[in-house]
């Protein structure tokens, strides 16, 4: 039987505010345990939450970026459950009136096609603390620094049909939140976490199968692997006459499998109700208009503009717009050299290759966008040829010179375009290669084009690579043909 996979994602994005969502404690990562957990975060008696305006603004910016409805009124609810890293006994969240309504995100697939994934809603909530189960004489250690950190939970519709689409969606969300600057998107530090809802159904069946929820899938790679495993597990189960039960499962990246955590019967009853400590949040049109006017150009718009305005291929436009840093680097290179295609080739070719080899991100590139732009300009204005350009790039990468011009000067790489100088080199090569000249003269005219390569090579060598290959080619042909 042919099976179809149905996937929905819940993505938790940690918002890049300085202080917590309901208190003035710092959200900085990596502090000593419990040094950033104040009375509000600890849930001490008598404390009251006060909502952070920046958390609200960031949530709304996300909503605007995914073309979502932003309701005028949103309300905070209490989600009640007991766990030691949740000292209040409830998580302040939004259940019935979230801050961001229905929207949509465009994802790009391998074949450069795009697909729209609908967003069901996105809501604000606070993060919990951390439980450390290592050896504390049989006790559990609790660090509440993370408690109260603002999260935006983005809930998709079950619109994805493969692990690849799910990964592409997660990447799209990642690039939107990092373009907006509302999150650092650092998955290793937990700034983006993901729960995956997966089910399978026979191809062509309208109703969904029973889904399993996989918790805490925390990298792009794990999303694909967790889904691949889970899909296979469910299909095997059904084909062996079993039934998928609705349950929460945990992905174990070391064993590459998902394990049952709790079934629906054991599921928590969270007893949501409106939080009496917080009033409804009301956003007026002027506020939304103001935030809309501050939005940067977003990945999908950039991708489209790179294709239509700069004439890049869909593939190039997609790669270069994937992250804000990459896009900004490319745009600076393009601004300096004025040639989009060359800028795209260099950023994706020489530069990306070097970055990958040394495992560097583009923000830490030893060659700046400005330097690369100038280097390309020197190729475009024929100061150096392509081969010399690679030498210049390598020198800049190694810190041997501040600019392309400095390296070109210091290494004597300037292309010799003075026809007289090139001609004298050609004359010398012809004089020193009587055998090859004779061969050239005696061969069929259609074969001569190929034979000229030898002479070009010799002239380039004589010029130490500084001659212009096209110019050498033209002049050589003239001179050799004159000998016929």
């Amino acid at each position, binding site marked *: 039987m042919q099976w179809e996979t149905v996937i929905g994602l819940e993505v938790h994005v940690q918002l890049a505010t300085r202080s917590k969502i309901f208190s003035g404690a710092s959200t900085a990562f990596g502090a000593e345990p419990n040094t950033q957990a104040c009375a509000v975060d600890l849930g001490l008696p008598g404390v009251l939450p006060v909502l952070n305006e920046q958390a609200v603004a960031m949530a709304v910016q996300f909503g605007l970026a995914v073309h979502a409805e932003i309701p005028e009124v949103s309300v905070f609810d209490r989600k009640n459950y007991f766990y*030691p890293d949740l000292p209040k006994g409830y998580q302040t969240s939004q259940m019935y009136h979230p801050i961001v309504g229905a929207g949509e995100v465009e994802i790009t697939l391998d074949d450069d096609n795009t697909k729209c994934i609908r967003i069901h809603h996105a809501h604000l909530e606070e993060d919990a603390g951390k439980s450390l189960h290592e050896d504390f004489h049989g006790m559990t250690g609790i660090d509440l620094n993370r408690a109260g950190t603002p999260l935006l939970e983005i809930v998709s519709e079950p619109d994805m049909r493969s692990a690849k689409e799910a990964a592409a969606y997660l990447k799209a969300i990642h690039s939107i939140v990092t373009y907006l600057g509302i999150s650092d998107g650092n998955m290793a530090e937990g700034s983006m976490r993901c729960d995956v809802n997966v089910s399978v159904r026979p191809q062509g069946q309208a109703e969904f199968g029973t889904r399993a929820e996989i918790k805490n899938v925390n990298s792009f790679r794990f999303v694909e692997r967790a889904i691949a495993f889970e899909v296979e597990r469910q299909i095997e189960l059904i084909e062996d006459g079993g039934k998928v039960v609705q349950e929460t499962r945990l992905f174990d990246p070391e064993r590459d499998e998902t394990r049952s955590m709790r079934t629906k019967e054991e599921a928590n009853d969270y007893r949501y109700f409106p939080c009496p400590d917080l009033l409804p949040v009301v956003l007026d049109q002027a506020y939304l208009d103001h935030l809309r006017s501050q939005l940067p150009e977003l990945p999908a718009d950039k991708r489209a503009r790179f294709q239509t305005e700069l004439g890049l291929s869909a593939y190039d436009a997609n790669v270069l717009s994937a992250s804000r840093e990459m896009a900004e680097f490319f745009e600076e290179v393009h601004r300096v050299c004025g040639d989009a295609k060359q800028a795209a080739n260099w950023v994706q070719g020489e530069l990306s290759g070097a970055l990958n080899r040394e495992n560097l991100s583009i923000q830490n590139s030893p060659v700046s966008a400005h330097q690369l732009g100038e280097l390309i300009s020197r190729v475009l204005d024929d100061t150096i040829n392509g081969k010399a350009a690679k030498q210049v790039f390598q020198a800049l990468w190694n810190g041997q010179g501040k600019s392309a011009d400095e390296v070109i000067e210091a290494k004597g790489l300037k292309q010799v375009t003075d026809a007289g100088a090139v001609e004298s080199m050609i004359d010398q090569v012809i004089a020193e290669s009587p055998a090859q000249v004779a061969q050239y003269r005696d061969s069929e005219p259609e074969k001569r084009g190929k034979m000229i390569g030898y002479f070009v090579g010799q002239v380039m060598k004589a010029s130490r690579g500084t001659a212009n290959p096209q110019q050498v080619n033209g002049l050589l042909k003239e001179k050799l043909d004159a000998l016929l």
Partner: protein
Amino acid sequence: MALEESHVRRAAHLARLAVSDDQATGFVEDLSRILDMVDQLQRVDTEGVAPLAHPLDATQRLRADEITETNQRDSFQRCAPAVEDGLYLVPRVVE
């Protein structure tokens, strides 16, 4: 609504309250009376009335995103039963 002892047991479990058998019987009666009152409220015609999220006719005020809290871990941890390496210690929990 007819409340049964199993409902009381479940609510007590969710609230992590220890309830004895005698207490449970009493709670069934008490809570049933509260639910009867809720039933009475449910009968009111609320057609066209928007649900109320908060009794105060006011909206949430926001605060600027500034760090105003300083580290007071030592004083907070003075009332904790067990701490180590800056962590609060609790009976072992394993999900």
